[in-house]
């Protein structure tokens, strides 16, 4: 697996501890790790090939840290992304406020990036209905308003996780036929955007 050959850049965004890493872990490795919660530091990248019809599309997934500390860095993770999975915890209404922040950020900076709103931890809702703090219909209305897709998932049971990423891959596949003129590949963009580099040469 070379990290280089990536078709679509996908970025995971959302408040810390909503379960972004678990979602990626479930999708890529089909498992759910139980254990003490560990915050992601910076960001983690993983490439995952997936089938769409008879084609193979490789998603390059950037799992970003939710902490505010890395906010200044987040631009480099979502720049040029084709899809953003904005996660919120269904049992934590403040995490949805944070999701709105990311949506605004994306709308301002990455207009070509498709947004997928993803409510996590449905297993907790199933165990106790009263635990739900974010209403399904409110989010659906918000999704319609911003033209986003909306999913509710559980990384623990695997509910809806594959469907979410499959949708991302399919949407990429159907949109890549209508390539915008002058569009560059992500890596080209990265190269063009590289800051002029100073000093630090080998002796």
């Amino acid at each position, binding site marked *: 697996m070379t990290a280089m050959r990536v078709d679509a850049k996908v970025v995971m965004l959302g408040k810390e501890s909503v379960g972004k890493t678990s979602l990626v872990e479930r999708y890529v490795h089909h498992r759910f790790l139980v254990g003490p919660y*560990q*915050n992601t530091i910076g960001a*983690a990248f993983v490439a995952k090939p997936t089938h769409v019809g008879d084609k193979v599309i490789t998603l390059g997934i950037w799992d970003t*840290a*939710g902490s505010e500390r890395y906010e200044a860095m987040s631009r480099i993770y979502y720049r040029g992304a084709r899809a953003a999975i904005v996660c919120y915890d269904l049992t934590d209404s403040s995490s949805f406020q944070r999701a709105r922040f990311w949506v605004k950020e994306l709308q301002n900076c990455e207009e070509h990036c498709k947004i997928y709103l993803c409510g996590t931890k449905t297993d907790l809702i199933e165990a106790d209905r009263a635990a739900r703090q974010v209403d399904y219909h409110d989010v659906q209305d918000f999704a319609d308003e911003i033209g986003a897709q909306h999913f509710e998932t559980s990384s623990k049971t695997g509910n809806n996780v594959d469907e979410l990423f499959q949708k991302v891959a399919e949407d990429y596949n159907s949109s890549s036929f209508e390539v915008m003129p002058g569009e560059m590949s992500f890596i080209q963009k990265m190269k063009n955007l590289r800051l002029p580099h100073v000093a630090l040469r080998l002796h």
Partner: protein
Amino acid sequence: MAADVDRQLWESTNGSLSIEPVCSDRADSPAPGLVSGTEPGAGQETAMFAHTESFEDLTADTEGAGLEPQEREASLQEGRGEDEEEPREECAVIGRQQQEGGREGGVRDKDKDEDVTSDAWRAHRKHVFVLSEAGKPIYSRYGSEEALSSTMGVMMALVSFVQSGDNTIRSIQGDGYRVVFLRRSPLVLVGVSRGSQSAGQLLRELQYVYLGIVSLLSATQLQRVFAHRQSYDLRRLLSGSEHLTGSLLRLLERDPGPLLSAVACLPLPGPARDRVSACLRQARAPPLTFSLLLAGTRLVSLVRRRDLHLHHLDLHLLANMAASCSAFREAEGWTPVCLPKLNAAGFFHAHVSFPLPGTPLCLLLLSTEREAFFELSACKQRFLELLHKRNALLGLQEALSCPTYSVALVGVPELRHFVYKSRSSGLYTSPELEGPYSSDEEQERLMCLYQQLHSRLHHPTRPLSSIYHTTHTHNLYAKVTSGFELYLCFSALGTKAIAEAAVSKLLKWIRKEEDRLFILNPLTY
């Protein structure tokens, strides 16, 4: 920003220190009076680390505590006081001193819900608090910070009160407790310990916690947020780092590395290590400044840019960070990290990966370019391919499956454990903690004994060159020369004569094994 960082990096490297050991003859039976650079484990070329002395470094920082940021920057680079001094303006309230031998294991992981008024909370062996100069809680090892805001308010009041008399509070001692204060503007760190830890040791731990925070934010950002608003709640920026601080504190209690200012190596036969290092060097890319291969906290290989030296403290922080994030295990991590000893002002960008699934092998590629992820990812790929091509993988995997060795190999029956540090290379070696030391509690107890010996050897006013210490369960012997530092732990049956004979036997054994236990041929790009 990137350019800025680069510039500062240059400035800081100009002041960096490198030790070039003279390496003429490597005697088979080294005498204790060895010249630095010829002791077992000494590197054959240049030293790998920026600084390999042991205690002076910490004090150099303590001295700089009251300085302004810019001045402190300077003192970090230049000022390495030769003599380590006891806090000069000490405000120590000496009360009833009640040594406590017994210790509870206690809850290890931070429990936010823990009741801070309960006896269980009070019974923790060591508390660590971080607060801002405005008295706002930032971190507590146990219990929630909110519940402790009044306690932290009292701590800040103590600091300010002593400060108002143009003095500095260093420690308070009494009733079996020791309270140590470390002021690192804009932060104040407080350690509270029950037991026999010296103030110097506690201070070292607080220093690590402080630098751990700097490694996440950089000193520049830390100064900036508080300059902007004194009452800033730093927990916003540090959220999620509590488990990093927690694991750092556990590392400090368990690992002799931070105590000795040294790094342990993964035992690996010399030729195998050289092959791995060569692969690592060949897989380089222009933006790289350091390539590190670690197994837990043990160093497998380090390749660095010729003009840059990594500090052991930065390495401990990096190892702690890499091990504390599960997202890195299966994916490739990319994170900004500040190496406070190399350059507290800017960020490096670290590519973190665990290239051999199921093993603790961790590859860290450090660069100053924040867009270099894919370039470094390709480096990692190249490194793995080279390992395969040159058949270096098998030796490495074997070494990873047995990362330690038994003390019985030395052939001294009474010897239970030892720690040996080569001072010129900044590397140390230590056998597995086995037998009576298999439990965490006993391991910490042994570390505590080593700490006590260490603080006696490096006593600020009366340093010792060797010390023999007997308790009803142990016989301990420690020795320091210009070349090495050695701590030995014998069973209760040991005697001083056995200990002295064991030193030369052990040195011979280490000399014989040195190419496996140490990195003798450090590489640069």
